């Protein structure tokens, strides 16, 4: 349960936003995305020093002891800045999975190091189809040895620790693997969004340590958490590119007046505002439901997953159109939002999958 109050959450958000505006501006982002690693060590240190990498880590392990409410809030800011950092994969997913474990030694070893930013962790879930479903797990564990492939893994290129979801016997288990261990091959996958680094990881008889007490339901819970975090990112990113666009409508003059005076654009902006506000509401409602464990949590998580993915994509796509030629240039940020929107729309399951899950949840409730 959360130990952070509303005011404190707002203060964390404000501090994080300030940090991002100082150290993760568009110019910084462009420098980072053009680098080999796609990672900004100084920025990550600053984020960790603020406690953001350990937001979900309990205070006993050097964390802030926050909840999904805090994560969702922070991710709105991260999304707005198109943050390039191992936050979602490490600070959210890896921490959530580790927290599920009953192994006190493991937690004492990894959580403080993740919270401090020293250790970068990521989670490998899906196989080559990129469905993030049980059927698409591509790694098999036999007597503690992992073989197979995991794909679309975030930030694996800079990770120290891999938490690998694998089929073990009839069930699902999660394993801790040193990213430099023998038999591990991390192949970079070129992503359309240059601010992200994705990898495909091959495991060839890799010795791995099972996470005690972690099973398929732990993985599902972690994925739902990740979906809400991602929904927050999408809502925040949609709002930022929307704001940029509305500002442009105010200042760009054609036919003797600001283009925002044309109904064609006004109406588009009004429709997009509905999307942006709906995405924000969906992401926050899902976070509340998960935090409280209310019965409608499953439905709200699925709703947030597709509503935020679709809204972000729609807003980013329209933003280019509403800017005209200037947004067709690489130097303008609009396309970076479209790129992130298109990649985000696939992470942890695409909209069609979530719509289906949404209806299943409604059925169960009815």
């Amino acid at each position: 349960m959360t130990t952070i109050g509303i005011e404190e959450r707002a203060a964390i958000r404000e501090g994080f936003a300030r940090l991002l505006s100082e150290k993760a501006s568009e110019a910084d982002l462009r420098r980072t995305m053009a680098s080999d690693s796609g990672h900004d060590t100084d920025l990550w240190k600053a984020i960790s020093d603020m406690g953001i990498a350990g937001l979900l880590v309990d205070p006993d392990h050097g964390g802030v002891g926050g909840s999904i409410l805090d994560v969702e809030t922070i991710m709105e800011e991260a999304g707005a800045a198109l943050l390039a950092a191992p936050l979602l994969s490490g600070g959210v997913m890896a921490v959530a999975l580790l927290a599920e474990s009953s192994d006190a030694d493991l937690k004492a070893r990894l959580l403080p190091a993740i919270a401090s930013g020293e250790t970068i962790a990521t989670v490998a879930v899906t196989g080559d189809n990129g469905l993030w479903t049980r059927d698409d797990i591509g790694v098999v564990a036999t007597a503690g040895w992992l073989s197979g492939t995991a794909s679309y893994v975030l930030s694996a290129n800079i990770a120290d620790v891999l938490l690998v979801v694998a089929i073990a016997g009839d069930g699902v288990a999660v394993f801790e693997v040193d990213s430099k261990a023998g038999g591990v091959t991390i192949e970079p996958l070129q992503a359309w969004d240059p601010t992200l680094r994705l990898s495909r990881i091959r495991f060839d008889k890799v010795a791995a340590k099972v996470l005690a007490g972690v099973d398929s339901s732990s993985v599902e819970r972690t994925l739902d958490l990740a979906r809400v975090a991602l929904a927050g990112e999408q809502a925040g990113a949609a709002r930022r590119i929307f704001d940029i666009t509305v500002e442009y409508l105010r200042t760009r003059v054609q036919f003797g007046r600001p283009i925002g005076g044309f109904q064609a654009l006004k109406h588009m902006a009004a429709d997009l505002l509905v999307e942006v506000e709906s995405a924000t509401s969906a992401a926050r409602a899902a976070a509340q439901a998960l935090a409280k464990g209310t019965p409608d949590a499953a439905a709200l998580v699925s709703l947030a997953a597709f509503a935020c993915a679709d809204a972000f994509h729609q807003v980013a796509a329209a933003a280019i159109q509403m800017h005209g030629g200037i947004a067709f240039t690489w130097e303008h940020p609009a396309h970076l939002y479209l790129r992130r929107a298109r990649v985000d729309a696939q992470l942890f399951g695409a909209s069609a999958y979530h719509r289906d899950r949404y209806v299943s949840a409604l059925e169960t409730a009815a």
Partner: protein
Amino acid sequence: MNDVLSQPVVVEGDVAAEVEAFLTKHWDKENGRPRDADGRIRGWMEKVFEAGWAVASWPREWFGRGLDKDDARTVLAAFRKAGAPGAGQDRTNISAATLMTFGTDELKRGLIPGFLTGKYTNCLLYSEPGAGSDLAALRTRAERKGDEYIVNGQKVWTSGAHKADFGLLIARTDWDVPKHQGISFFFIDMRQPGVEIRPINQITGDSHFNEVFLDNAVVPAKNLVGKEGEGWKVLQTALAVERLIMGDGAGERRQGSSKSNVVSLIDIAREAGKINDPLIRQEIARATAYRQLNALNVARAKEEMAQGTSSPIMSLGKLAMSRILHTDAAVMTQILGAASMLDGADNERAADVNYRTANAYMTSIGGGTDQIQRNIISERVLGLPREIELDRDVPFRTSRAVTG
């Protein structure tokens, strides 16, 4: 080799047979290239031009064959069937069509052959930083000095400027009349010291378009097309040709390639193993229907025009194509699923879909945005009241574009 005796006997005036004979003799259908030993396209284009097939509907004294619409269509169909380029340029060659309508005889004689044979390439020097949708607000100035105009200003988004021999330039020659009335249209030689070209990086990763800085660039007065101050009218003709081309799916070609790039959604779905996915089938139906319905619209419009009635449908083509291209890219993305996150040479299909996703904006923004197309359709085709334009009737010098 071709057996000369087996060639059809050509009766003068039988256009179908004549064009068949020409194609059979000079074009290697199987390999999709000219029969000439070196197989160069330029040589082929010259042959097409000399035979009058390039602009078959134009009079014989102006590079054509004086054919009526039906016969001209027969020619184009034969070329298309053979996969041979070069015909139908009366409707698709922006420079040639504009010159033919408004150029002096001297200019027509001097420039049209070069454009029709591909010896000359062009670029469109219309848009400026402050004048995009509102092109008439342009501020590049052309001042007459004896037999020349001296041009100063800046153009932007100029596709292909770095490769062009000539620019179709609109510039202001009179600042004391309302904005549409003080514009003149020129063909400017791009290869001169006063023209500086800086490439702009596009969201597609290419850099086909450019900023063009005109610093005391020189245009001979004889390169003025239409009268001084009548450039807006000339521009409408040039824009109409451009929009027709874009409505025909020019935006589907990878820039710099003349090959059509239509891929079947069915093939992509098969390849991805999703052809039986009911959701994907619905989406394929939606996207393919947009394309087919547009094609049916165009076919009906052509028929109506052949019967002498004018059809409003032709104005819809570019807008329709914009929706087609954006929808295609979205459906392809959905079919690819997670693979659509990837890019680059290792992920060819995804890279192609990504390119389409970005490049679709070329059709929805370039050549007049979708919003502007909708204004044109509602105002000019439907005759709905015009949007109020504050600075339409005031001397340009006093309008907001100048005074800020």
